[in-house]
């Protein structure tokens, strides 16, 4: 498989606080890769560095053979990386449909097929297309955040904690949909605290601990690793 995203020796700091150090990992085309780790491990910062929301201090981010670590976020979106940020960040005063349209901000013309595809992935959004986004439930808002990120027709989708605050049943629905999205050709890099559930359906994973990658491997390897089980998944 072809490497779509290669990150080498990435270092990010907020002022004098080092948030990430020597982060090296890659994502291959068509994979679901999950970054797991405790609070403050640097998962969100990693995604933000990729989408340009924070500028790395050192290191390289290469997307499809092109260095992107010095680019502004709006340029990175145009290259085909879409970021569904932590905490959903939907526009409550706009309808569901209007929120989706915003995702297509970089597109010259709105692609009906993309919209249809998103409505198929999340039938709920179609039902509620005329409703104000602020009145949706947590799970529906999450669907909307993912759907909006897909409107820019990304090659790589960055998902930040899609299961945050959702019931196990809803989490499953979201994760199943993420799988469907991957199957239609979008590579996915996601961040999850819900490590067990995420690793179960991802291809590979990286474990972060205070700004460093401490473990990596296929999902099976990580799920069976004693260290991961104890530290991040809870004892059996």
């Amino acid at each position, binding site marked *: 498989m072809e490497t779509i995203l290669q990150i080498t020796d990435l270092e990010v700091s907020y002022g004098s606080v080092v948030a990430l150090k020597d982060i090296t990992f890659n994502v291959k085309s068509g994979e679901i890769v999950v970054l797991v780790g405790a609070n403050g491990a640097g998962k969100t910062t990693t995604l933000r560095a990729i*989408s*340009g*929301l924070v500028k790395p201090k050192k290191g390289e981010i290469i997307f499809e053979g092109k260095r992107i670590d010095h680019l*502004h*976020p*709006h340029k990175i*979106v*145009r290259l085909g990386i*879409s*970021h*569904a*940020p932590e905490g959903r*960040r*939907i*526009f409550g*005063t*706009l*309808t569901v*449909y*209007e929120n989706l*349209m*915003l*995702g297509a*901000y*970089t597109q010259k013309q*709105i692609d009906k097929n993309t919209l249809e595809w998103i409505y198929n992935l999340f039938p709920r959004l179609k039902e509620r297309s005329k409703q*104000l986004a602020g009145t949706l439930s947590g799970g529906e808002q999450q669907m909307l955040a993912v759907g*909006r*990120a897909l*409107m*820019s027709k990304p090659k790589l989708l960055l998902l930040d904690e899609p299961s945050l605050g959702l019931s196990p049943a809803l989490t499953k629905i979201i994760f199943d949909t993420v799988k469907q999205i991957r199957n239609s050709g979008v590579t996915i890099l996601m961040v999850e605290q819900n490590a067990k559930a995420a690793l179960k359906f991802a291809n590979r994973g990286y474990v972060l601990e205070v700004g460093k990658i401490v473990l990596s491997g296929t999902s099976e390897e990580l799920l069976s690793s004693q260290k991961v089980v104890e530290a991040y998944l809870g004892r059996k």
Partner: protein
Amino acid sequence: MRKNLVWYILFFTIAVIYPHFVDPSWVDIGTTFALYSVVALSQDIVLGKAGMFDMGHATFFGIGAYTAAILNTVYNIPIIYTIPIAIALSALFGIIISWPIIHLRGDYLLVATIGFNIIFYQALQNNLFGLTGGPNGIFGIGAPVIFGINISSQRAIYYFAWFILLITMLIIYNIDKSKLGRAFHYLRESEIAAESFGVNKRFYKVLAFALGAGVASLAGVIFAVQYAAVSPETFNFTQSVLFFTIVIVGGPSSIPGILLGTFVMFVVPQFFREFATARYFVFGIAMILTMILRPQGIWPAKFGKLPKYLTKES
């Protein structure tokens, strides 16, 4: 929309007949109301639409007034030609000033803009380059001549100011309907979301300052014409506070709100002029009451409508 149009026509009709029914001092107040409304609307581009706390907007108003004053009195350039120069210069200043501080948020940006206002005021006070006339300012500013008509009478200036207000309202209305206005809206609501779907944050924020500065400067030129003089006090920090509060009290991002805000914060205190400076009690009380009773402003804006061409399904 139709209903709004009727109200606006009524509003401007009253404005047209108003000077024929009041004494000259109230005509002057009407002129200043129109100009302050223009400045408040321009402040709103930055504060209400783009959501940046700009507490130094009188700077741009002053750049307009002083540019016109200096070019007219020192270089004898007719006022009408100073208008585009003043707008361009002020917009350029808007870009230069905002560029290094645009990444600041909320109160940090607010303090930085106050700093710029203080520097500007001091520059005027200290007769920078021997051009600004120091604390006394500049006198003897001419009147604009348009199509051979000399805009020097009190009424002519009144109508000219209201014409500028009309133009400004059309500009603001168009911003609201455009991609530009929506980009401002998304940046204000959530910077991270806006950036994550591809809005160029820095570009739009600096543009908001440039636009706001340009429009405020236009009002500044007419203000200099109205009084045929300019002096530093009119463009100090207190004046910036007035424009800032007009937007907050009236209703950010709402044209009727801002007109109403200007009325409450500027015109109403004039009714109490016999009480001399005590009239500013009204000013203070209005601020406090609005924030308690209507924190969204007296006439809040309605958000969330995307233009038809974007939302029509099929």
